[in-house]
């Protein structure tokens, strides 16, 4: 369990770094385009790749931080026992969704990998490089959600998320 929690955290930190790296790449792109009139072919695509991987890697971590956006208006009014049931149900929804997405997401990755499909964009990377992020990210999320489910037996959790923008 602690292994999964620290794995989520490390994936999250890696994701955060990938997202910040997009800033450097795109700034470089603007400079290259306006000052040297030589747009890069890689900046837009690699930063897109960082966005995909960054977000999906961070999902489990965000869950452990209770930072997924949630409507708490009703659950805040409930007694602790009812809150616990709500959290339990919510975790079941998350796990069901994540498991399905992991499995079918793996199919998408696997097919592209076997076929050797490429993106056909300026950089023409293999399509699976982006597609692999879905099964990986949602498997991490599933694992983290299972940890939360097990922990629910011993600790009280009022809500899985917070309201933020």
């Amino acid at each position, binding site marked *: 369990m602690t292994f999964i929690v620290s794995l989520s955290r490390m994936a999250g930190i890696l994701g*955060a770094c990938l997202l910040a790296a997009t800033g450097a790449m795109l700034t470089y792109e603007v400079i290259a385009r306006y000052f040297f009139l030589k747009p890069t072919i890689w900046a837009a695509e690699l930063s897109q790749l960082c966005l995909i991987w960054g977000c999906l890697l961070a999902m489990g971590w*965000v869950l452990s931080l209770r930072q*997924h956006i949630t409507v708490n208006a009703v659950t805040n009014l409930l007694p602790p026992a009812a809150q616990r049931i709500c959290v339990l149900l919510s975790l079941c929804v998350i796990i069901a969704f994540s498991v399905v997405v992991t499995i079918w997401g793996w199919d998408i990755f696997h097919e592209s990998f076997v076929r050797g499909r490429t993106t056909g964009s300026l950089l023409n990377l293999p399509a699976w490089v982006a597609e692999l992020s879905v099964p990986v990210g949602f498997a991490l999320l599933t694992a983290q959600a299972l940890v939360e489910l097990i922990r629910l037996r011993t600790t009280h959790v009022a809500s899985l998320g917070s309201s933020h923008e």
Partner: protein
Amino acid sequence: MTILAILAILFALLLIGVPVAFALGGLGLGMLVFGGFSPLMAPQSILSTLDGFILLAVPLFLLMSNVLLKGGVGRDLFGAVQAWVGHWPGGLAVATILSCGLFAAISGSSVATAATIGTVAIPEMVSRGYDRRFVYGLLAAGGTLGILIPPSIPMIVFGFVAEESVIALFLAGIGPGLLLVGMFVVYSMIYARVSDSYTPMPKASWSERGEASLRALPSLALALLIVVGLYSGTFTPTEASAVGFAAALVITGLVLRSLTWRGFWEAVRDSAVTTAAILLIIAGAKVFGKAIALYRIPQDISAFIAANIDGSLTFILLVSAVLLIMGLVFETLSMILIMTPVLLPAAMALGFDPIWFGIFMVIMVECALITPPVGLNLYVIQAVARVSLSQVARGVWPFLLLMLLCVAVLFAWPDLALYIPFKW
């Protein structure tokens, strides 16, 4: 009937506290499986959502404003504006609104705007004897300017789901944004004339003004760079966000030297968390959107509206009422994501410009930000001022009315939004 059942399940899932992304995605997936469609649509939708270039602007605008936040730019902005207008009648209130407007030009989020300016303005105004209710309402409402004056994350999201130009939306937000700033300023000055509970500020000396302005200058230059860059077509929104992030690092790290390594990491971490949360909701909404499209729900609602509602005024009144009620409990992005696919086709059939409709939606979700029980800006001000929610909520209604007045002006005079992007 199906529509009502689906809405009932969605609301039930949301209200028992399933995170919005998974409520939308899970229900959408369930509908796909139940309707005999392939579950493959779920991962495909998630991938295609995250593959949208425009959405790269979300983490980058967040990084920009978080870096500025950690670098204490809010204090500098407020200080500078205060030095110029603080001695006016209601001067601190005017300074607060103007600072919100300026910060809005370098932040895409209303929560960040309310938190940044609120942290410095609330203690100052309360210590000068301004009525607390007025102060809290002012800050909660002023913060909403963050998503109307470009850049704006909800506009990026609207542009993404509606496949409309984000630059056009950004530029269209300027007019109504300035109008709202003007209305808030005028209201504050009138309020100050009527209530005399506060102690006016002394007029700042020219050297004080110069010093304060100098410190705020880099941030103002950044705001100008972004707006002018977008207007002139030098940057795409995504590029503007990247350049803005880089410039924010230069300003706070090298020029003002107010950003610590720790602050930088916190900015990166907070931005990542928010980005993942936001983009996952968009992906979930995409799955849901496909499911309702396969059940032909948007088409049915459009047809129903076309058959039963004649006249654009009736339509806008009805939609405003729906959005106001929905806004009591929903937050910004869920509202935009759930309602845009349903309402936009009907609106366009009635002859509304999609960009105009986007701005209308943004002002309506701004109202949602300050209506209890769920209003993010209320929560922010509550946290910053350490007071109860009801105290904050009681102060917002005059501002809510002003925002609805702004919607009315926008309806009567669409060019308020459309002039800058299309006719200038």
